[in-house]
Structure formats: structure tokens, C-alpha cells
């Protein structure tokens, strides 16, 4: 293990890996800051680049994007009151009032410091938990693996709270798509219509590019004005979210970045003392909820905000510009990233769309996340953990050193950015197999994504089904073949019974949560 650990460290500190991690952080922060640009979309844009890079380098780029995107989202939440990512919505509650009071630098400094602490805490948990969980997972048999994948699929419930029928339909459509191509046990061609392009099935990443990027491109056509700059301002100024004629602050005049006070980015000692407890709460809650499939950053951020409000004894100041209200959700949403990497690396189960893309990217490099990753490529697994650590360090450095320049990026003209993204989608789909067929499939998935939007059907269940469907079928069939059709082994195997029990808990939790949300 020590040898692999050292090897991993060496891989992560190679100049190319470090540079890729830094660039990833920079791109992630920029993408996170641009409202309407999700971390998933940013990852898809850089996807074609990673095919030609070494896996250690490309994973550094992705991890930088993941961690940087979370931080960047909070910048637009604080400065514009528009969360760049859903996970930073809670940050706006106190961040934006601080900006309104002329303390933008203080709010951003708090966000950067808390994000760094949350990220580091989750990196530490990743180091401590992941190898042990992988050791345990090596004992799993097919029945256990089926139940585990089934547990992963119950994430769907948390995305289907608005309509169970539509959420489940989305997942079933994904499972149907997965069955195209050779079946995973006997290699029989299914639903290929004698087209050789379909023999290897639909490439997960092709589907992903279409599903996420094309609806995003169309969405960005809504209400754009000449120039298409995304406004940035302070209350009452043109381009600010609350100024007339500037819906959401997206389409206002040129940014007033210079008008925002950014001198005091380094947090004062008194503020650091004040945020100790909220950061601790956020880090612990974020890491724990990150490990749980489906919980994700937004829930972690709001729960941490609520806990911090109760625990600090300054609850009356929350919502009016309390630094604790910025620190707790920021620590939480960055801690989620490390937490989500734990089940992704050790069990091959994605906790959110971003880790699903990471799995796809690793698979494109011939690396299958799961317990065997720690046996066959332990050096890479440790390298990934070290890269995640570096990503958090780079986040801090880049944010503190370049924030003045970075806030200007929020004003990047969409008129030039979006066409480049559209062409990059084509390049990404083409690069997978140098096949125009994949590009057409990508476009087809884009239309499917738009149709689902029209129907208000969630896309994430389909995505999860695409990632987990093949494993689900393979393990189910192997388990049933081994038991000659006896399904009781799913309940008699301790691990399998545990996972099925957790699946029930996950579903019940989602149902109760959805009812609470609907309750007046």
C-alpha cells in the first residue's frame, strides 16, 4: 500500500498533472461563476481534450473542474444573488446581503476560506475511508453487487419527487437504451437492427453530451440581448439582479466589477474565529451527505446552514449578512465533492451527475471505478485522491490571487461562448470513436433532452440508468444463474439484505421529504 501511495503522490505532483489540476480549477471557477453553465456542462466541454491526455492528467483536470465549479458557483451567488450552481443557493442568503452592505470582499473571502476547509476535510475522509471501503467491497458477490447497484438507482427517487411516474419513466427509458448492443452475459446482439454501429451499444458520454449540452444551449437563447453579456452589479445599479429591465441580472449592461469592493479578500482573524463552528458543521454534514447517493450539494448546504443557524447562537443575524451563513453552506458544498468521490471510487456508484461523468471519463480511459481499482490500479486511485487535495489548494490560491480578474469573466459574451460550446459538443462526440454516427446519436439525445424538458421529466434518472443499467443486468443475471433462478439469495446474503434495506430507507426518505415539500 505504501508503494502505491507514494506512486500516487508522484503521479499527482508531476508538472503536467499539477498544471491540469490548476487549469481545471480555473475553468471550474469560471464555469461555476457563469449562471446557466453547470459543472456537468463544463466537464462535457473539456471531455474531448481528456481523450488525448494521460489518465492521471485528465483526472486532475476533471477534479479541478469539480472543486472549482463548486467554489465558482458561490461567487455569482454572492455577487449577483444568482447561484452559479444549485449547491451555492444557500450561500446567497447571507452572501448577497454582505455585498449590499459593501462587504463583497469579506463575503468572498469567507466563501473561499470555508470552501478550502470543507474540501480539505473531505479529502482527508476520502483518504481514510475509501481504501477500507474498497477492501470490504472486494468480498461482494453478484447478488450483493446487484443490490448495491439497485441502491445506487434509488437516487432516482430524490430526483423524481415532483412526479414519480415521470422519474421512473425516465429511468426505464435509460435502461431500455442500455439494452441496445451486445448483452453483457452472452454477447447476443439486441435491438441493433443489423447496424454494426449499434453492436457496442450507445456510448454513455455521447448520450451525456447531448442530454446536457444541447438543452443548455437552447436554454441560453432565452431572453438574450445584443452583446449577450451577463450583468454583474450591486443593488440598484444597471445590470444588478434587482435592477429594472435586468431579469436575474443576466442581461444587463456591462459589469460593474470595478464598483464592487474586493480589497479585503483575506479574512480577518475575528471572522476566522467566528466561522470555526459553521465550517466544522458544514464539512461534516457535506462529507456525510456526499457519500450518500442522491443527497448532493444543495441539500448539504441548506442543512448545514440550518444547523449553523441553530448552533452559533446568532440565528437572528442569519439572512441579513452573517459570515457564518456564508461559511457553513460553502464548507458543506465543497465537502460534498470529496464525499461523493468515496462511493464513486470504491463501489463505482455515482452520487450525482458530475461523478457519473467522471465514471464515464475513467471508463473512456479503460479504468473502471470500483473495488478492483484499488487492486489493479491502486497507484491511480491514490493519485486521484492526491489530485483532489491539490485541487482544493489550487482553488484557494487561484481564488485569492485572481478574483478581481475572475469576476470580470461573469460578463463574458454568450454570443461567442455558446457557439464555441456547440461546436465543442460535436468535437467531443466525434472524438470518442471518430464516427459521425456518434455525433448523430449525440444530437438525438439532445432532442430527447429537450423533449424531457418539455414534459417536465427529470433527466438525472435516465443518466443514472445509463451508468448503472449494464451492471444491474449483468449482476442480476449472473446471480440468478448461480442460484438457478432462486431469488431468496438476495435476502439471505447479509450484504445484499443490508443494501436492499438501505434502498427501502432511501425510497422512504425521498417519499417523506417530497411530502414535506408539498405540504403547505
Amino acid at each position, binding site marked *: 500500500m505504501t508503494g502505491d501511495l507514494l506512486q500516487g503522490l508522484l503521479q499527482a505532483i508531476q508538472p503536467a498533472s499539477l498544471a491540469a489540476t490548476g487549469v481545471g480549477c480555473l475553468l471550474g471557477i469560471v464555469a461555476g461563476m457563469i449562471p446557466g453553465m453547470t459543472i456537468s456542462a463544463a466537464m462535457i466541454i473539456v471531455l474531448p481534450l481528456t481523450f488525448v491526455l494521460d489518465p492521471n492528467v485528465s483526472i486532475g483536470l476533471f477534479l479541478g473542474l469539480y472543486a472549482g465549479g463548486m467554489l465558482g458557483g458561490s461567487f455569482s451567488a454572492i455577487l449577483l444573488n444568482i447561484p452559479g450552481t444549485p449547491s451555492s443557493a444557500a450561500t446567497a442568503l447571507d452572501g448577497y446581503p454582505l455585498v449590499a452592505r459593501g462587504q463583497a470582499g469579506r463575503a468572498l473571502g469567507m466563501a473561499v476560506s470555508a470552501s478550502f476547509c470543507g474540501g480539505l476535510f473531505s479529502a482527508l475522509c476520502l483518504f481514510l475511508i475509501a481504501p477500507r471501503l474498497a477492501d470490504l467491497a472486494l468480498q461482494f458477490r453478484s447478488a450483493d453487487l446487484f443490490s448495491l447497484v439497485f441502491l445506487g438507482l434509488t437516487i432516482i427517487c430524490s430526483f423524481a419527487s415532483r412526479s414519480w*411516474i415521470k422519474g421512473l419513466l425516465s429511468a426505464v427509458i435509460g435502461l431500455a437504451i442500455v439494452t441496445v448492443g451486445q448483452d453483457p452475459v452472452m454477447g*447476443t446482439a439486441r435491438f441493433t437492427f443489423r447496424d454494426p454501429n449499434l453492436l457496442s451499444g450507445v456510448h454513455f458520454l455521447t448520450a451525456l453530451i447531448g442530454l446536457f449540452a444541447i438543452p443548455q444551449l437552447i436554454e441560453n437563447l432565452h431572453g438574450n440581448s445584443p452583446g449577450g453579456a451577463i450583468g454583474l452589479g450591486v443593488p440598484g445599479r444597471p445590470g444588478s439582479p434587482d435592477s429594472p429591465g435586468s431579469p436575474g441580472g443576466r442581461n444587463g449592461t456591462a459589469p460593474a466589477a470595478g464598483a464592487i469592493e474586493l480589497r479585503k479578500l483575506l479574512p480577518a482573524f475575528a471572522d476566522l474565529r467566528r466561522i470555526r463552528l459553521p465550517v466544522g458543521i458544514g464539512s461534516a454534514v457535506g462529507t456525510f451527505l456526499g457519500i450518500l447517493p442522491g443527497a448532493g450539494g444543495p441539500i448539504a448546504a441548506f442543512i448545514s446552514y440550518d444547523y449553523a443557524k441553530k448552533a452559533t447562537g446568532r440565528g437572528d443575524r442569519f439572512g441579513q449578512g452573517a459570515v457564518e451563513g456564508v461559511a457553513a453552506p460553502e464548507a458543506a458544498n465543497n465537502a460534498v465533492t470529496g464525499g461523493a468521490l468515496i462511493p464513486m471510487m470504491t463501489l463505482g456508484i455515482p452520487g450525482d451527475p458530475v461523478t457519473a461523468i467522471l465514471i464515464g471519463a475513467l471508463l473512456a480511459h479503460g479504468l473502471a471505478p470500483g473495488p478492483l481499482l484499488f487492486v489493479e490500479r491502486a497507484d491511480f486511485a491514490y493519485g486521484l485522491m492526491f489530485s483532489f487535495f491539490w485541487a482544493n489548494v489550487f482553488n484557494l490560491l487561484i481564488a485569492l490571487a485572481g478574483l478581481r480578474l475572475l469576476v470580470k469573466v461573469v460578463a463574458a459574451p454568450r454570443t461567442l461562448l455558446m457557439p464555441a460550446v*456547440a461546436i465543442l459538443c460535436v468535437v467531443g462526440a466525434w472524438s470518442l470513436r471518430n464516427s459521425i454516427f456518434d455525433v448523430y446519436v449525440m444530437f438525438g439525445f*439532445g432532442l430527447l433532452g429537450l423533449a424531457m424538458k418539455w414534459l417536465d421529466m427529470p433527466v438525472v434518472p435516465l443518466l443514472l440508468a445509463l451508468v448503472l443499467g449494464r451492471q444491474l443486468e449483468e449482476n442480476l443475471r449472473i446471480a440468478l444463474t448461480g442460484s438457478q433462478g432462486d431469488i431468496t439469495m438476495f435476502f439471505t446474503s447479509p450484504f445484499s439484505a443490508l443494501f436492499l434495506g438501505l434502498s427501502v430507507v432511501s425510497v422512504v426518505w425521498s417519499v417523506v421529504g417530497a411530502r414535506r415539500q408539498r405540504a403547505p
Partner: protein
Amino acid sequence: MSGGHRNLAAGAVLLAVGIGYGLATALLPDRTLPDTPGPAFFPWLIAIGLIGLSAALTVRGLTAIRQRDGDVAGYRLPRRGWLALVGFAAYLLLLPYAGFVLASVPFCGGLVALYGERRPVIVLAAAILIPLMLFVVFSTGFQVLLPRGAWL
């Protein structure tokens, strides 16, 4: 179109897809060992799920229409969205024949204009420079063999 009509339309389409999927599953070769699931086992489960859920969505749509429920404004594709999609489709059809750069230039220019740029010089410059820059980065920098066109 109301939420109920949308659900009804989508339910009906998905029901037809589910039935088609079930029929295609029935045609799959059933070569397997006794008492073990074959290649059609999993698709059958999916077909049943797809048909059942689509039927439920159809019923929900019908119920909503009868009760005049769900008449809320839903997502509508803007006119520029339709134009962008048609342009995208034309671009993809042109791509294998014209090659990456030639096909991307009009597509990129069209998109820049659709996103709101009105200055002809900027549209023209972006239409040429963005595809050219991406072509150089990917084909020279990353050795990705982008479509070169049937004429080469």
C-alpha cells in the same frame, strides 16, 4: 398545450414505444441454459415497466384534462431555439461532406447571430475564427482526426 395534454401525448407515444420494444424483445433469440435468465430476460422487465408507466402517464393526462387540472404554462421552445435546432441538424448533415471547418463556419456564424450579435464584422470574424481555432487546437495540438470532408 396544457400539462394534461402534454402528459397524454407523451404517454401515448411512450406506450407505442413500449409496445414496439416488447415486440422487438419477443423476437430476440432465446438461447440459454435451463432455469437461467437469457438475453431477453432484462428487456422483458423493462418492456413491462415501460408499458405500465406509460399507461399510468396517459391516464394521468386524461384525468387532468377532464378535471381541467395542470393548465400551467410549461416549457416552450423559443423560435430561435427551433432555428438553432434546424441549423444544428443541417450542420451535422453537411459535416461529413464539407468537412469540419467548412461546415462549422456558417453554423457558427448563424449561432453567433442567433445569440444576439448584430455587428456583421464580429459575426463574420467569430464564424471564421472559432471553428478555425478549434480545428487547429484539436487536430494539431491533440491529434484528433476531425472530419475532413468528402472532397479531400
